[in-house]
Each structure stands twice: as C-alpha cells, then as structure tokens.
C-alpha cells in the first residue's frame, strides 16, 4: 500500500480506539513525550505495561484460588494495575480495575472472579489493538514516512 494510505489507516484506527473507549487522553500525553531523543518511548512504556500486567494477573489468579483469600493483597495488586493502566491511558482496563476494587472492598469473591475475567479480557483486547497500531507505525517508518500526530477534537 502507498504511504499516504497507510498513514490514513493509522489515523482512522487510532481514532476508532478512542471512540470505542480503549484509549483516553493520557495516551496522547504519552505520544507527546516521544521525540528524537526518545524515539521508542511509547512502545517501551506499553511493553512494560503488558509485562507488569501479566505478572499482576497471574498473581491475582493465584491469590483468588487460595482457600483463604487475602483481600488486602488483591486490593494492592489491583491498585497497581489500575495505576499502570491509567498511566498509559488504557481506559477500559482502568474502569475494569475500579469495578474490581469495589468488589474487593466488600470482599465478594464471586464478584472478584468475574472482574478478574473482565480485566483479563480487556487487557487481551487492548494488547491486540496496540500490536496492530505498532505494526502500522512500523510500516510507515519502513516506507520512509513519519507517524502522523493525532489531533482530537473532544
């Protein structure tokens, strides 16, 4: 495909992510921080997030499997996950974490398990989205073009 077409596709795709609520304004901030001295900043942060989240989700799975559930620990893990996701602007993950925390406060195991599933789902989804996004970016870079910046109108 031509360079311009790929760029158009990237812009549309990113806009769709925002529309569907996968990403919020914080992601734009991240993009602003990427410059010549830091060319892979976004990629690094997102990768770090996924590593972190994978670990946290495993911990949560194990913790909820225990006969005596340690809600404090679960709360702290979820808090971490919420913090990380809000830092990169993964909105739906963050919302899922907020719901998780509420169930944790009332110590509802069923609710927690459901929420865990949801969080995992959201993470998985947003991960795919990011992968597509990065692939498009790489295509543009390989063709010698520059990644267009998104101007959001809301």
């Amino acid at each position, binding site marked *: 495909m031509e360079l311009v077409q790929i760029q158009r596709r990237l812009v549309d795709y990113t806009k769709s992510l925002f529309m569907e609520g996968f990403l919020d*304004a*914080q992601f734009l*901030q*991240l993009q*602003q*921080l990427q*410059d010549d*001295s*830091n060319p892979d*900043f976004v990629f*690094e*942060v997102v990768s*770090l*997030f996924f590593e*972190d989240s994978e670990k946290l989700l495993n911990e949560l799975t194990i913790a909820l499997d225990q006969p005596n559930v340690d809600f404090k620990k679960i*709360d*702290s893990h979820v*808090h*971490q996950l919420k*913090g*990380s*996701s*809000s*830092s*990169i602007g993964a909105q739906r993950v963050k919302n899922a974490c907020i719901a998780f925390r509420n169930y944790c406060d009332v110590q509802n195991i069923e609710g927690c398990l459901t929420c865990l599933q949801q969080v995992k789902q959201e993470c998985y989804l947003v991960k795919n989205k990011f992968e597509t996004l990065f692939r498009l970016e790489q295509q543009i870079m390989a063709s010698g073009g520059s990644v267009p910046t998104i101007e959001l109108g809301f």
Partner: protein
Amino acid sequence: MESCNCIEPQWPPDDLLMKYQYISDFFIALAYFSIPLELIYFVKKSAVFPYRWVLVQFGAFIVLCGATHLINLWTFTVHSRTVASVMTTAKVLTAAVSCITALMLVHIIPDLLSVKTRELFLKNKAAELDREMGLIRTQEETGRHVRMLTHEIRSTLDRHTILKTTLVELDRTLALEECALWMPTRTGLELQLSYTLRQQNPVGYTVPIHHPVINQVFSSNRAVKISPNCPVARLRPAGKYMPGEVVAVRVPLLHLSNFHINDWPELSTKRYALMVLMLPSDSARQWHVHELELVEVVADQVAVALSHAAILEESMRARDLLMDQNVALDLARREAETAIRARNDFLAVMNHEMRTPMHAIIALSSLLQETELTPEQRLMVETVLKSSNLLATLINDVLDLSRLEDGSLQLDLGTFNLYAVFREVLNLIKPIASVKKLHVSLNLAPDLPEYAVGDEKRLMQTILNIVGNAVKFSKEGSISITAFVAKLDTLRDSKAPEFLPVLSDNHFYLRVQVKDSGSGINPPDIPKLFTKFAQNQSTGTRNSGGSGLGLAICKRFVNLMEGHIWIESEGLGKGCTAILIVKLGMPERVNESKLPYMPKMPTNHGQTAFPGLKVLVMDENGVSRMVTKGLLLHLGCDVTMVGSSDECLRLVSHEHKVVFMDICVPGIDSYGITIRIHEKFTKRHERPLLVALTGNTDKVTKENCMRAGMDGLILKPVSLDKMRSVLTDLLEHRVFFEAI
C-alpha cells in the same frame, strides 16, 4: 847412465817446490769445487736470492778455475798432448767466463751495496717506530691511569675520601715519595697543610699565601716544577741524598656562589689549593711530560669532584632545612585548624544559646503587643521589641561573619520589590535622623526596575548599614541616597582594578550612593574601614555602638553579589560618600500576589524549560514511574528514579531540587519519608521541595500532606503542560498545592 826400463819417477828428485805446488793446486782445486757446492746448497736453503744468473756465472767461473788448477796437476810431469789440449781448453773457457763475470759484476756490485744501505735505512726506521710506539704506549698508560684515577676520585662524593683517594692513586701511578695538599685557610691569607700521603696526621703547617713561587703556580694552570727548598716543598726531613724533583699544581676550589646564571665564574676571584708532588729522592728520575700532564688532569678532576661534593652537601642541607620547615608548617596548620574548629563550635553553641532567649523575648513581646495595653505600655513594649530585634540582628551578624569567612554563606535569591527595600530603609532611618535633625532624601532613578532578583534581606542589611553609618557620623546637615542602574562607563571608573563588570541580558548593576555632610574621613584611613573590628578613632568621638563588623560584613555581602563597595571622602569635616554597586538579576515575571496556586499560562514554551534540574521521583508502580520520568525528561530535567522509600532516603541529596512522591500506594509511608527528609536537611535552602502525586481527591490527603511538611500536591494524571506549569510555580514560590 844406463837407460833403464823402470818407471820413470813421478816426482823429479829435486823438486820440493814442485811438491808444494802440486799439493796447493790440489787443495785450490778442492776449494774451488766445494765453494759452488756450498753456494748452491745455501742458496737453495735461502728463500730469496735474486741473482741466480750471477750465481751460475760465478759458479761456472769457479768451477773452471778449479778445473784449471786440477788439470795443472797433470802438467807437473811430462804429459801427453791431450792433457795439454784439455788444459788449454779449460784455461780458454775460464778466461772467457771470468771476463764475462768481471763485466757482469760491474753492474751487480752497486746493487748489492745498495741493498745494504736500504737495510740500514729500514733498521733505523724500525728503531724510530719502536721509539714512537714506546711513547704512544706510555701515553696510553697515562690515559688509563688518568681514567682510573678519575673513576676513583669521582666514585665518591665525600670530600675527604676524594682527596685521600687522589693522593693514593697518584702515588700508585707515579711512584711518588711524597704528595701533599695545601688548602687555603678561612682567612685566605695562608695555606695550610691538609692532607699528606705518608704522614697520617699532618701537623698544621701554614705557609703565607703570597710567596712568589706560590703565585707562580697559581697563575698558571700547568704543573710547575718548583725548587725543593720552597717552603711548600719541605715535607720530608732533609736526607743525605738530593731530594727528588718537586712539582706543584693548582687545584681550583669552586664555590656554589661562583656560578652565576648568566655568566661563568670569574677566574680572578677563585680560591686555589696547592698540590705538591715529590719524586723519590734517591732515584735519578725526572718529571716526564706525560707525567706532568697526568698531574694537571688529575688536579682538574679533583676540582670538579670537590665542587660536586660541595653542591651535594649544600642540597642536603637545604633539604633538611625544608623538611624541618615542613614539619613546623604542618604543626602550625593543624593548630590553626584546631583553633578554627574550636571557634566555630564556640560560635555555633553561643549563637544557639543566645538565640533561644532572644526568640523568647521577641515572641512574647509580640504577643504582648497584641493584648490590651495603655499607650505608655505600648511604647515600652515596642521599644523592647525593637531593641531585641536589634540584638538578634547583631547575633546574626556575628554568625554571618564567621560563615562568610568560611565561605559557607550562600545568598538567598528571590524576586523582590526594589523600591520597597529603599522605602523600608528610609522608614527605619527616619526616626533616628529626625532626632539628630538630619534631613534624609531618597532619589530613585526612573529607569530602575521595580523588581529584581537577589538576596533581599542582605541587600537591605547592607544599605541600612551604610545609611546608618552616614547618620551616625553626621552631626548636622543632610543625607542623600541615590540609586540608579549603572552603565558600563560608570562601572569602569569604580577605582577597583579587579572589579570587572560583565553585562549580560538578564542582569543589571545597581549603584547606590549615600552622601553625608558629616565628619568625613581621612583618605589614608579609608582602606582600614572595611577591616574587621577596626574602628575609626581619628575623629576623637568614640561612637559606642556597632562592633566594627558592619562594614566588613557589608563588603563581604557585596562581594558575594559580585559587586564593589567603597567610600570616598575629601578629608576631615568634608563629609563622605559611600558607593556600592551590586549585580542583580532581572526578574522574569512581575509577581504581585503570593497565592500558592495560580491558574496561568506557562510562559516558557521551550521544550527544555528546566535544563538540568535535578529531580528525584519515587513511585512503586513501574509503568507510572516510567511515564512520570518521560514527562520530566521531556522537560529537560535530570531524573533519578527510585522504587522504594529506603532507596529514596539513600539517594536524596541537596543537589535534587524537587522530589516527587507517589503517595497513593498503601504500602509506602510518604509522610514518614517527608519527616525523615526534613530531618536530613536542616538548612532550608538545601532541602529539596517535596511534592506528592496522588489520585486521591479528598481534602484529608491534602491536609495530611501539608501537616507532614510537604511543599506541594499534584493530582494524577499529570499532563505535559500541567507538569510544566507546576514546576515553574514550584520553583518560584517553593510551594504548590493544587486546588481540590
């Protein structure tokens, strides 16, 4: 007589003569035949014989002669005709050969003779060469001796060893009877016998130096033969025999001071020692030329070796001296350090002790001011407050001065209102001035900026001190204070060669002139004014008040502000003018209000708004930590990341200007850390600003933060613009609490 048939007698009876002839002929023939044989034999033996043909001829001649004589034997008796013919042939041949030989010899004999002459000539030449070889060998011997001597002499740096070795080696080389060294005495008028070869301890003979012989020796650098009757040569008791020849040579004694840097030592001012060598008295030896040369060379070498030894002695002495001085200096330094430490401790303790009651007085007086008081009581309380404030200032002065001396004082830079400073000074000085009936006027130039960046407190202190001095030393008249921005040409005539003003865009030089019409100062006394504790006593009016520290402190403050302060006076009774120039910064922004949080547009749109600002970020969450770091890096800060409170406490230093702490993590006791950081940095300007990052939007968090001693609070998420404006506000106001 009967003829008989008996054999005819061989020998005629009466011929004895014939018999002898016969025998002679026989022997002649024998000899003639054996000579050639001998010749041939010996020639064959010898390797070289150029005249073979001559030999052959000669041989033939001899052989023929022999043959002739042999044949002659037969002719004594009657002989037949054959014998006669043979004889004739032989004779003819002999004649021929001998004639030819005779002719040949004419040519050959001169040659043979010349061979002899050549041989003689070569023998002479050989003898001559032998002689020369002998000479060369002697010279080489001498050279070897010299080298060996030199080696021996120079192998030691000790004076006595050098001289002793010289004498011993000379003796070994030259087989001397006696060898002595005469050194000049300290006075330089006599020569003293210092070293001898044979006598172990020479008696202290002295000989006056102005002896013609000695002068002769000293004036030439060659070895001179002297008479054995000369006083320096009378080293041995007179013996039966003629004393051997004596030779004397001078040994220059080179002194360190003789070597000037740019010119070589003057020969006329040299001192010499005298070396006397005596040949054995009962030998007929004479001094040979090569021996004299040897002696001269040795004398030179000895001179060099002695000078080296002298230099070494000198440098060893100098080194010892230096070491002693070093030790003394070290001790002095340590004592000084101890004294300084003691003084600092004393000052610190005293100040603390003095300040505590001062604070009590000031605090309670202020509180008392708030209560209901009668007018007289109010006046009294105000006086008490003013006096205690003054005393507190004095204590601060002393502490400041000691800190200034140590160089540990730093200016508290901030933006302040310049006009307000002058107004304040005027307000403070007006009461005293009006009591003394002095008129004070203030002139601020219109181009003087209203706001400036600098150390407000100390600038005011300095100006107040100068104005106070003006008031103090004036009994009547007026005081005028002028302030304006100094231009470059006015800066240059500031009478200080080391004051090099540098103009730049965001700085300006403030020039303040305080002119009074008071008692004036003697121009020679002016430099002393700025020294500590030196009061001006020439006027005779001992103004008690002021410890004499004021101007000294002012000068140091002004120096810290990269400025200059000086006083001009035309003399006693003519008043004086104090002029001070300080460097102040231009404020970046005019700021009237002091609200902690102001919603305003960031004025710095540059990407690196805070170049090199050292920041510490503490956040447990890896992702959000990375995001915050990216934010700050983007703004150009120098970011250090820590993930735990221990790490934070370990790494935080006074170089970090801001510490961002994420406090919404339940595990971290952010308030505890805040308190610990407060404890760690007691000086306010050293402590980094502590800012909390939180997602909690309740007031309780904010109050907790403020109470724990944090300087700021920011709500997450933080955008780039928000971080930029937060940092700007933070650095300016040193506090930033986001409105919740």
